[in-house]
């Protein structure tokens, strides 16, 4: 019983934190290190995204992707136009928008940008 009492007393003594004069300074040092870590992480993610974007774009242009995409988008535009005609046969503006493939291109670019944001956000969370 006395042993148990002593052990409890020891736990209480360990739990008592002595007051330290530099408590606030210590906390500020930790906060500064946290801030530095986050800034560095953001810079690394941004730099990696920029480098990845440049490499990806250059690869796309060098591989003749643009021409292939143009052909594919024209095909997609035809399919889209046909589909929209079935839904709204008299809405000519839809046909005008889709016939050039510009909408498909724009949608693709926006999707890539959105994906980029999602990946950057996920990396920040990790």
């Amino acid at each position, binding site marked *: 019983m006395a042993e148990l009492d*002593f*052990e409890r007393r*020891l736990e209480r*003594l*360990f739990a008592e934190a002595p007051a330290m004069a530099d408590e*606030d300074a210590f906390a500020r040092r*930790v*906060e500064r290190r946290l801030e530095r870590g986050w800034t560095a992480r953001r810079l690394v993610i941004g730099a990696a995204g920029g480098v990845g974007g440049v490499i990806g774009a250059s690869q796309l242009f060098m591989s003749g992707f643009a021409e292939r995409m143009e052909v594919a988008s024209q095909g997609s535009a035809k399919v889209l136009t046909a589909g929209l005609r079935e839904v709204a046969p008299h809405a000519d503006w839809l046909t005008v928008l889709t016939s050039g493939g510009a909408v498909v291109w724009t949608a693709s670019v926006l999707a890539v940008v959105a994906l980029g944001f999602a990946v950057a956000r996920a990396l920040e969370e990790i």
Partner: protein
Amino acid sequence: MPGARYSSLHDVELAAHAVAGDRRAFGELVRRHGAGVRALLRRMGAGAEADDVAQDAFLAAFERIAEFRGEGTFAGWVKRIAARQYLRRLQRQRRLKALAVEADEADPPPAGDADGRIDLDESLKGLGQGERLCVSLCFGAGFSHAEAAEALNLPLGTVKSHVKRGLEKLRARLAPSDGAAAQGNDAHG
């Protein structure tokens, strides 16, 4: 004032803010528990390194803050992280002496008050490294004997021996508790 906003929040609420990336909320947790963590590390024998290890421990805690679910106290959780960080540092620098030896060499007992009684910090200095680490881990960081054995890479029996010897030494050296002191004064009065 952001500080006032955070000071009214419970640790669990602050941790939830920190999970969402709020570093000021985490700063308030550091303000509340920094001294406790640093004191534990000093009691484990970290000395001048205690503050560095404590900083690293809080940074590690921030990285893993999502793992803190409020089942125990935040102080207990971060103390366990700090204790493990310190042990890893000792192992990396090969500064863990042969803790498995039966008779742990200790500093000579420090001078105490008129009755030879001293406080916890001074009492711990009279323990050998193994005794001091085992007692601090089990009574200061909430490790079980088995967890301490695993963390120190020692057989369970050795840890139990260190704790037993450490407790015996501490019981002999620690100043009597307030209640006991009061009783003693009454008896003499």
